[in-house]
């Protein structure tokens, strides 16, 4: 599977975070009486935005998480052992 899930997650949260920050600046202060006087939109929007960026960075780097287990030495060793034990048939990993 070549689509790294972190890219859509990152993109979506960066986008939603940015939207929240903007709404935090635009929405009238009257609205924040509900959230106990805290501008939760701006604060939480920023948190979501940063989370989105981190996910995007991790996804771009394409680190070990997404590779098939057969692409690393450790993964190959485990796969080999599993095959030996009859737990996996060869060629079952795409």
């Amino acid at each position, binding site marked *: 599977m070549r689509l790294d899930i972190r890219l859509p997650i990152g993109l979506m*949260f960066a986008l939603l975070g940015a939207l929240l920050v903007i709404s935090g600046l635009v929405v009238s202060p009257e609205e924040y009486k509900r959230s106990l006087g805290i501008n939760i939109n701006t604060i939480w929007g920023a948190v979501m935005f940063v989370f989105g960026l981190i996910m995007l960075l991790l996804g771009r780097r394409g680190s070990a998480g997404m590779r098939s287990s057969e692409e690393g030495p450790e993964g190959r060793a485990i796969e080999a052992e599993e095959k030996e034990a009859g*737990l996996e048939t060869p060629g079952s990993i795409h």
Partner: protein
Amino acid sequence: MHLTSIDWVIMVVYFSFVLGIGIALKRYMKTSTDFFLSGRSIPAWITGLAFISANLGAQEVIGMGASGAKYGIATSHFYWIGAIPAMVFVGVFMMPFYYGSRARSVPEYLKLRFDEKTRGLNGISFAVMTVFSSGISLYAMGKLLGTLLGWSFNVSVLVSAVIVLAYVFLGGLTSAIYNEVLQFFLIVFGFAPLVFLGLKDAGGWTGLQSRLSTVATASGFGSGAWSESWRYMGQPSSNPMGVEWFGLAMGLGFVLSFGYWCTDFLVVQRAMAADSMSAARRTPLIAAVPKMFFPFLVILPGMIAIALTYQAGSSGFVLPKKLDGTFDYDLAIPMMLGHYFPTGMLGIGLTALMASFMSGMAGNVTAFNTVWTYDIYQSYIKRGASDQHYLWMGRMATVFGIAISVAAAYVATRFNNIMDMLQLVFAFVNAPLFATFLLGMFWKRATGHGAFLGLLSGTTAAALHHGFTLPANAVVGVKGGWFGALHVYPSEMAQNFWTAIFAWTTCFVITIVVSIMTKPRAENELAGLVYSLTERPKQDREVWYRRPAALGVVVLIMTLVLNLLFW
């Protein structure tokens, strides 16, 4: 609740991503294994998050919030002695057989281990149950969105059914899993600020505790009955759940939770999609870590809601009442969203709520299309067709599975009792299952006839127990007692736990007795299916935090600490 354009934009963004993932994955769906098992190619952290997210449907979010208000922190037993130990068990002990046997579904494992009739019984009852559960989910969502936002039931049900249909149809299990991960993060980010604001309004944890003691004493219990999870479990009469520690530990902890987390294909399917045996075993263990903190996300808001209702905070939040004057506990979380969130954040919160409904439904749909195609269609209707044909059938099963769910949701609007009845029947069918799997995996002598008769008699025992008992203050009918109430339980929950205990024990005993009287299978046929005849997967080459057993111990210690902290 009033939505502005920013809330709408947020919803549109989310649903575009949901559909976009389905479209992006479509070109990878080349074989039936790609569609039903994600080609067994997904890393453990993704399957792990999907493992909890598939279960994080409507019943979980709305129901746990409601129970938090109704029973207080004791609701966390559903996690801390329920789900977590079961998840550790399935990862450490059972996954080697599910993943290692190369079975494509849980019923198929039963076919490999026992025989065709046991698979048929499990496969058919599971297929029926998942389709109706997804209908229940749809009905609940349509009703809730109507209450909160005044949306029409038709629009809510049809639009969400079409969205789930689109992304499962296009991208199969991978699409469902990817979207479940997306939904997981959305639910965490959507509800965390709610807990923060609610706690702040209630005066922090200590403020909440003192308010909850007002709730407890006003309801006639000791002052910590809502904020201490174990201290009041000595007797059924001293806690609002009406259960005692033994029924709780055996009924909920052992039978119901192990039965669900270890044998329900809805969750096990996520682990089966993992890219290696080691990843499959780590799936439920990775899932257990966020899962143990979920009480703070879904139960705590309910506790805050009831606390503020009895002793008002600065913002004046009150839990609404139903027409008959009792609290409408199911509205605890939705009403808090509307009360505390300003426009913008409200969009995120509502989207998270809808996401939870849809992830529950998509989980049911992917489990249904797999069991239908592999265990019913391929086994009894059309054998030996091409793989492309089964891939096509999987897509068709997605369409008619969702069509039946929608129909079930509409039936429920007319006869609400039908849903209660169905859930009752599901409980009868599910309760004995764990005994069958436990014996199947760990006792090589267990036979197909034993398993089949054990399951049937377990379900019968559950129905009989329910028919002969009644919870206190309940009328004879859906609640039980239709054969005459021989015993009255202090609460409905106590009755449920004991129904499960009876069903499990009957299935366990009958399976053993019948197995001893029938001919066992040759040992060489059972390699890879039974514990004593399977070589242990070696773990020495992995660093400790990747070894399932070590991870399992860490998870259990963390859970123990949580139990002690909120004792």
